[in-house]
């Protein structure tokens, strides 16, 4: 056990810190997230810059153009980006989900076609999994992909798709085998977002912004060569995607919490310093943040030693989301009436945080997963 950086890690961190210092434009620091991520072309430019500096695809194998670095480099990247309040890469779905899924299940042609463009942010990806009637229950997806010769004809609707309005490609899970049993009824496709019949409508959320979208597919023809894995084997392919969604997710989440924590400390020093109860609550949030941070380190060590995320990682998203809700509420509470102002950071974060316990696995589903897969409790269904 050694919680310090190795000499290589320390060197990487120092170099990255200097690079961020020199390259993050002042006016783009400390973004509150949300719609600001796609307001203009800056997102793509920034992502391209990260790629050129070698910071995109740190953990991707070298044969696919990545750095082939251990997961700890990616964790350091996320920590330092948060510390510098640097904007995020807009290709997160491509880098973290679509890319690894193509590496695992794609043909040589598919790899050739997409992987280098995902790295360079030439291709931005979105995810077409959730539907109005199939949120947590992916196998109940109703979007149809009907095989007609060399194409699948796709009809249906997807929802809660981040980046869809700027995306070039979509990873799509659709029903292809009407008669097959659950989990053998799906096919996994990559869909060109500019194909005829694809329509994207932004979805306005409780913050008033539109970060997510609905995607409508009307007789969209998807060539068979865009299929990942087997026809009817989409469930297994989707599980690869979701596994990667959770891989180093904990670090990304905790890094954003770190930014909020630093703001909270500032607010508390100014507004709640004489109040012992408030100080206790702020301390509790600091303690839980350390608990999450070191839980991520433990999960990371397991991942590096075994190649598989450890069970402790399943806790990260569940507890991060709840902590973010408490922490943003506390920040607004400390500010009093000032925290109600419409352009306030805390006001926005508190509203936005309500989505945290719903997106990327609701807290209820995560507790089911812990109960059944980690604790081994009997299955209810």
């Amino acid at each position, binding site marked *: *056990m*050694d*919680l*310090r*950086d*190795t000499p290589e*890690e320390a060197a990487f961190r120092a170099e990255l810190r200097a690079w961020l210092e020199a390259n993050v434009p002042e006016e783009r620091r400390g973004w509150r997230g949300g719609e600001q991520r796609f307001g203009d072309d800056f997102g793509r430019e920034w992502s391209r810059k990260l790629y050129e500096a070698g910071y995109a695809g740190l953990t991707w194998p070298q044969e696919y153009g990545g750095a082939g670095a251990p997961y*700890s480099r990616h*964790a350091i990247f996320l920590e330092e980006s948060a510390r510098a309040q640097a904007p995020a890469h807009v290709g997160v779905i491509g880098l973290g989900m679509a890319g690894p899924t193509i590496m695992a299940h794609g043909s040589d042609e598919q790899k050739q076609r997409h992987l280098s463009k995902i790295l360079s942010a030439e291709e931005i990806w979105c995810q077409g999994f959730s539907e109005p009637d199939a949120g947590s229950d992916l196998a109940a997806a109703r979007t149809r992909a009907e095989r007609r010769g060399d194409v699948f004809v796709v009809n249906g609707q997807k929802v809660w798709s981040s980046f869809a309005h700027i995306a070039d490609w979509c990873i799509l899970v659709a029903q292809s085998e009407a008669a097959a049993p659950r989990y053998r009824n799906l096919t996994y496709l990559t869909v060109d977002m500019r194909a005829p019949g694809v329509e994207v409508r932004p979805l306005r959320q409780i913050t008033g912004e539109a970060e997510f979208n609905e995607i409508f597919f009307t007789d969209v023809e998807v060539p068979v060569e865009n299929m990942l894995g087997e026809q009817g084997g989409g469930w297994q392919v989707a599980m690869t995607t979701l596994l990667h969604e959770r891989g180093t997710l904990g670090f990304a989440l905790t890094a954003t919490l770190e930014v909020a924590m630093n703001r909270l*400390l500032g607010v*508390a*020093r100014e507004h709640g*310093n*004489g109040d*012992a109860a408030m*100080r*206790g609550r*702020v*301390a*509790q949030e*600091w*303690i*839980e943040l*350390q*608990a*999450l*941070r*070191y*839980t991520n*380190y*433990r999960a*990371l*060590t*397991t991942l590096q*030693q075994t190649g598989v995320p450890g069970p*402790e990682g399943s*806790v990260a998203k*569940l*507890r991060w989301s709840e902590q973010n809700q408490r922490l943003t509420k506390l920040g607004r509470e400390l500010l009093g009436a000032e925290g109600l102002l419409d352009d306030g950071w805390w006001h926005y974060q508190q509203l936005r945080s309500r989505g945290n316990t719903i997106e990327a696995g609701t807290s*209820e589903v*995560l*507790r*089911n997963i*812990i*109960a*059944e897969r*980690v*604790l*081994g*409790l*009997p*299955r*209810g269904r």
Partner: protein
Amino acid sequence: MDFAFTSEQQELKRQARAWLAERYPLDRDWEAPQDDAWAELAELGWLGVSVAEEEGGAGLGFLEEAILFEELGYALYPGPYLATVGLALPMLGEEERAAVAAGATRWSAEVRGLVPWLDSVERVAADGASYEARGTSLPTLDATRPLGRLERGEGMPLPGEPDVARARAAVACEAVGVAQRVLELGIAHASTREQFGRPIGVYQAVSHRLADTYADVELARSLAYWCAWCVAEEDEQAPAAAAAAKAFATEAAVAACERSIQVHGGTGFTWEHPLHRFYKRALWLEGFGGRPAELRAEVADSVLGVAVGV
């Protein structure tokens, strides 16, 4: 960055788990006087883990001790290991350390005017000196952990200072062990107890409580190991880490016991079931030497700066 125990440390954990399960099973006679197995602990080398080899110890560090504290909590070990190794050891001189490693002397220390196990140790470290263990001992809610008031006889100076962070780290690790054990008891019960024709663990009102306990235990474990590492490495973050770990882990242990009692239903409320003994141990750990609210105030001082106008 490497946040895992070495294979030797994992082996120590396995050995401790196995030995304690054999020596302190759940179905032991809880009403009989509890045997602290002190000579056996000395033989196992547990009393001199961090004592130098030339003094008869194993020459290891606090991480190995942290592993033992966790396992002792898991097994609900009754003796004064925490007092001797967790509280007193850093204050002792070479000769006294050798006697501890050999199992010749049990020690305790005065913490905020109270001496745990005063009636079952030979010596007490208090205000920089060593005293014969004499005075009044009062039972606490944990029957194996009385607290006493020291009657000071002649004191002999001790070379070391109390190490508050180390003591808190020890308590935090023990709390993690307690929490882990009651979680496992809850899982076992929810998997086998049937109502309405199904094991009660299929009901989310039950399984989600246990999932929450699991999350608490994992977070507490991360803090406890972080803090153990800081203590072992004399890292500057040790005091804040220890305050954080003790506050979080002991509260997590108490909550874990309360949820486990609820999951056990009426059985968990009986004297016969050992759950209440774990609960009482958790409450003792939470209350001894710095309550969570005080510890959070310390953390606040360190992250916010000392309060103005309080």
